[in-house]
């Protein structure tokens, strides 16, 4: 038995953890599971309780220490990658970048498995340009609760395919996937950085009416503690993969990401507070060039800055933290402003606040991204009155026709999912058809009612 939590280090529960990538072992583990069911877990990077299963079984599929090596084959001419679900984006990048191929979508960390990326339908700074991860999956094999292995693709059983994309692991265990990679000339990114003095300037610069759609990657860091006329000021970074000429390198595809330091295990609670974050924000804002500036950055520096600190989630101390990510329609910047004001008035500081404009929604009923603005905040979990505060912000988001990202969810109510995802019931009936006995269960599913708990108990 093992204690598990998500990356936010809250809501710990105990489960029987089986670490394996062997298909027969997985099948017999599922067949012998108790009535609290089974969920798959990758590298544990989802923030909340998506990959843990209190009192039940957790199948941990990671191949970081697999003696057989990384189970991934790249076709260097087409850029199609055939990969086991247990392989991380980190391993894929190490394999593919030197050969001129990049992952089609990467979240803010490369330490996620392919299985997790599909189950959460992760997005990155290029959502407005390339969509989310599931849109680049050509096909996948999935083990159902019955032990049967099915092959799914957008043309072959599309309903089950799209229910599994963003399905939080509750339709089956993804075993393999075939992914269309993105061709690149260099391992460098050409980045334009600009400082924006307030929230209006941020929204204007990122709106689709401007030139934002020309950039493959676009994201804005926002200072939530700045007040008055500077409220919501930010640093906007946009760019694309650099050409060989732009990279100014003799070895343009050289890729060597390193972990620099580890956060210690004894970080006190409350170290990241209003004052320390205010000081950080001021420095970060001032550090950015006042005028638009073009630079060349490495892949880790641009895409995965936090991966430079191993176990950075410990910075919040023993109480852990939550990540609050929601989306509202494009014309509801008023809600973004109201949310920022609400957190600011309550004195809630966020170390990481990121705003992004998302492109159109894909065919997956539970996929989070949809045309609109998504704001992401880190919040220390131990703050007094946080449950009440979040409930009021949740209501603002839902009333505006918005929703919350399940891979990061820490607290929303069962009704918030049903209101936010109009195709929820459709997904639920597909899920029930794929798993009639309700074998796949996670703490997230239990809390939000993503599985009918009366089945199999």
């Amino acid at each position, binding site marked *: *038995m093992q204690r598990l939590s998500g990356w936010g280090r*809250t809501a710990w*529960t*105990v489960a029987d953890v089986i670490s394996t990538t062997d298909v027969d072992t997985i099948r017999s583990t599922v067949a012998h599971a108790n009535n609290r069911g089974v969920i798959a877990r990758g590298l544990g990077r989802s923030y909340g309780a998506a990959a843990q299963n*209190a009192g039940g079984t957790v199948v941990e599929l990671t191949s970081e220490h697999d003696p057989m090596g990384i189970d991934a084959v790249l076709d260097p001419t087409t850029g199609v990658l055939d990969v086991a679900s247990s392989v991380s984006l980190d391993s894929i990048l190490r394999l593919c970048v030197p050969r001129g191929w990049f992952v089609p979508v990467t979240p803010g960390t490369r330490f996620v498995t392919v299985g997790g990326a599909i189950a959460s339908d992760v997005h990155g700074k290029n959502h407005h340009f390339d969509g989310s991860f599931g849109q680049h999956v050509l096909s996948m094999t999935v083990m159902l609760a019955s032990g049967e292995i099915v092959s799914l693709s957008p043309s072959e059983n599309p309903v089950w395919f799209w229910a599994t994309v963003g399905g939080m692991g509750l339709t089956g265990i993804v075993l393999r996937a075939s992914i269309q990679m993105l061709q690149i000339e260099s391992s460098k990114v050409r980045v334009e950085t600009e400082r924006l003095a307030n929230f209006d300037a941020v929204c204007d610069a990122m709106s689709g009416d401007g030139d934002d759609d020309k950039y493959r990657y676009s994201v804005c860091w926002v200072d939530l503690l700045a007040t008055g006329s500077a409220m919501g000021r930010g640093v906007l970074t946009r760019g694309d993969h650099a050409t060989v000429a732009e990279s100014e390198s003799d070895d343009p595809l050289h890729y060597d990401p390193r972990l620099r330091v580890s956060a210690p295990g004894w970080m006190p609670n409350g170290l990241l507070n209003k004052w320390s974050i205010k000081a950080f924000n001021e420095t970060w804002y001032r550090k950015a060039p006042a005028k638009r500036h073009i630079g060349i950055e490495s892949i880790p520096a641009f895409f995965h800055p936090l991966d430079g600190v191993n176990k950075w989630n410990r910075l919040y101390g023993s109480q852990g933290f939550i990540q609050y990510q929601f989306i509202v329609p494009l014309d509801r910047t008023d809600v973004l402003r109201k949310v920022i004001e609400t957190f600011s008035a309550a004195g809630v500081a966020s170390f990481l606040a990121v705003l992004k404009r998302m492109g159109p929604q894909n065919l997956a009923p539970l996929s989070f991204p949809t045309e609109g603005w998504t704001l992401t905040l880190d919040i220390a*979990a131990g703050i007094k009155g946080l*449950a009440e505060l979040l409930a009021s912000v949740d209501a603002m988001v839902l009333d505006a026709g918005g929703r919350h990202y399940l891979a990061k*969810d820490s*607290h929303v*109510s069962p009704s918030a999912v049903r209101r936010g995802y109009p195709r929820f019931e459709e997904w639920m009936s597909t899920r029930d058809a794929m798993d009639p006995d309700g074998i796949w269960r996670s703490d997230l599913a239990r809390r939000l009612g993503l599985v009918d708990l009366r089945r199999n108990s």
Partner: protein
Amino acid sequence: MKNGVGVAQNVVLFGGTSEIGQAILHKVVKPGVSRLVLVSRDIDAANRVSQDLVGSHPDLDVHHVRYDASDAASMEHVVAEVADAIGDIDIAIIAQGLLNEGQDYYNTPSHLVDVVNVNLTGAMVLLYSLSSRMRSQGYGKIVLLSSVAGERVRKGNPVYGATKAGIDGFALALDHELEGSGASILVVRPGFVTTKMTTGMKKVPFSTDPEHVAQIVEKAISSDKKIVWAPAPLHWMFLILKNLPIAIWRRLPL
């Protein structure tokens, strides 16, 4: 299920009319709590005392289960009935208790049987039943209302003190057995609390009220704490009282 901001979805109070229990519910029930079960002898009374709470949380799904707190043998069944109603038990608050202050046990010694059944035997069966369920859930928190009276049993009401001493020690040992299971027990040791249980009794130093006890429980419930005192300084006071030689202890005006 509990969530990432320390809120449990399903909460159960054993001793549904207990003032301290109700005060704890006022602190623990917040956005994120979906189901509440009040387990009591008198459902009408439990309904009455929880009116404010239920009124301020219109979405809360409230259930009632009737039980006899002195019927220790029925506890297993009572816990099963609660679980049938709501599924997982995330937080269970055990607030059942009999004080029987001023009872002349010399005249009718058999009157102590009920007190022992409610405070000790019943609570023990309840603790085992809840623990076994929470162990298979992989998580869960039991809040046991003990008392400083069990720290050093004194004259005046030795029956009450002895039951509290017993249940306190039992709960701590059980919590030890639960280590690593995800389930745990929080032992709460209030001093003199002004409630209906203590009306007419003379107040003592460091007395407190149900709201204060509830505040302390709310803070401790999402931590790894095993024991909390209300008010907190009682911890240090009893460290001394407990170790006083009998000759001095018996001279104290307690």
